[in-house]
């Protein structure tokens, strides 16, 4: 280039020659540059790349862990839901059964009570009826005795008398 021509007053190395000192110097330069480039380019960049890799790995691991946790929570929740539903069903079933049984009991008890009341009423009625019949029997007996005594005016045999009355009442009773 032109500046080379302009600097002819200083000494120049030959164009193609081997200078041992320059070889040594360039070898040292190459080694030094190798060291510098390793130290200032490769080492820091590789460190940061490794760090990023580690961070990405960690993030993925964390995400996987979170997903596993979420899955387990979900399955647990589903399990719980299933159990709760089963429980609710069983509670409902039990309640229904219990209600049925209770209503049955109540009905049965009511029936039994009604029957008992009816029976008692019938008994009472029968008792009252007998009482009434007996009263009427006594009345009629005494009335008949009076009437008969007055009609025939004589004392009939007591035994015959009672027998007659009984027959009479019996006849009435059957007819009534």
């Amino acid at each position: 280039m032109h500046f080379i021509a302009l600097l002819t007053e200083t000494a120049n190395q030959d164009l193609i020659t081997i200078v041992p000192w320059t070889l040594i110097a360039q070898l040292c330069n190459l080694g030094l540059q190798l060291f510098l480039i390793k130290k200032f380019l490769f080492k820091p960049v590789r460190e940061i790349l490794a760090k990023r890799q580690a961070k990405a790995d960690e993030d993925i691991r964390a995400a996987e862990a979170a997903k596993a946790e979420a899955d387990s929570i979900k399955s647990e929740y589903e399990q719980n839901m299933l159990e709760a539903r089963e429980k609710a069903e069983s509670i409902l079933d039990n309640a229904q059964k219990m209600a049925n049984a209770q209503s049955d009991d109540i009905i049965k008890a009511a029936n039994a009570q009604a029957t008992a009341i009816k029976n008692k009423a019938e008994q009472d009625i029968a008792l009252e009826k007998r009482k009434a019949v007996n009263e009427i029997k006594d009345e009629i007996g005494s009335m008949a005795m009076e009437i008969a005594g007055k009609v025939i005016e004589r004392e009939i045999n007591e035994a015959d008398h009672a027998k007659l009355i009984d027959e009479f009442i019996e006849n009435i009773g059957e007819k009534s």
Partner: protein
Amino acid sequence: MNVDITGPKILYETPWELPVLGSFKLTETILISWIVMAIITGLCIWLTHDLKVEKISKRQAFAEMLVETADKFVIGNIGEKFAWLIPLVATIFSLSIVSNLISLFGVWSPTADLNTEITWAAVVFVLITIQKIKAGGFGGYLKSFTQPIPVLTPFNILSELSTPISMAFRHFGNILSGVVINGLIYGSLILASSALFGLIPGAVGNILSNVPILAVGLPAVLSVYFDWFTGVMQAYIFCVLTIMYISNAASEG
């Protein structure tokens, strides 16, 4: 107007001399290499300061892209077991590309000095040899020179040595050719400019003929190919050859 293509300036020469090595000469190559290294290192520090795990800046994204590109380049081509090569390949690539392109700022390109490429190629050659010895053992490595027949041994040695030499000269030649062609075009355009405007008579012609009007524009366009394209291409080719030779060496034996 002379177009003078020479090697790098010698900025300083030590008064002392060592046997064999001679006196140490601080050339432009070495000085500009330090500037290149300062640029690369400064860029690395700027790119990787304040790195974050999340919500990264464009600057950090670019730094990560550089590292990932280097990873992909080496691992994608020759596999995971050569991951240790990534920083070296990245270093050679960045040194090469910045050295090639720094000539755009009008300074001496360290890669226009053969010594730079020889050094890189020698490092690659050492790695190739280590891989071969690792793969086949030292005996296997020596024996591989006598394959397929012992007569070929000299040629095998030549071919082994030609690997780093061809790598170094390929890179060097391409960058130097850019320097040479740009110099020639620049010089010839200045000459053409002064000749063309010298045709204008009078003082106007005298002034205009001394201003290199034609040298504006065209060299910039041509430098897109000779500096930019060649510079990026040669850095890439050097790195591809580096990883290919080393991976081939490991699979041999």
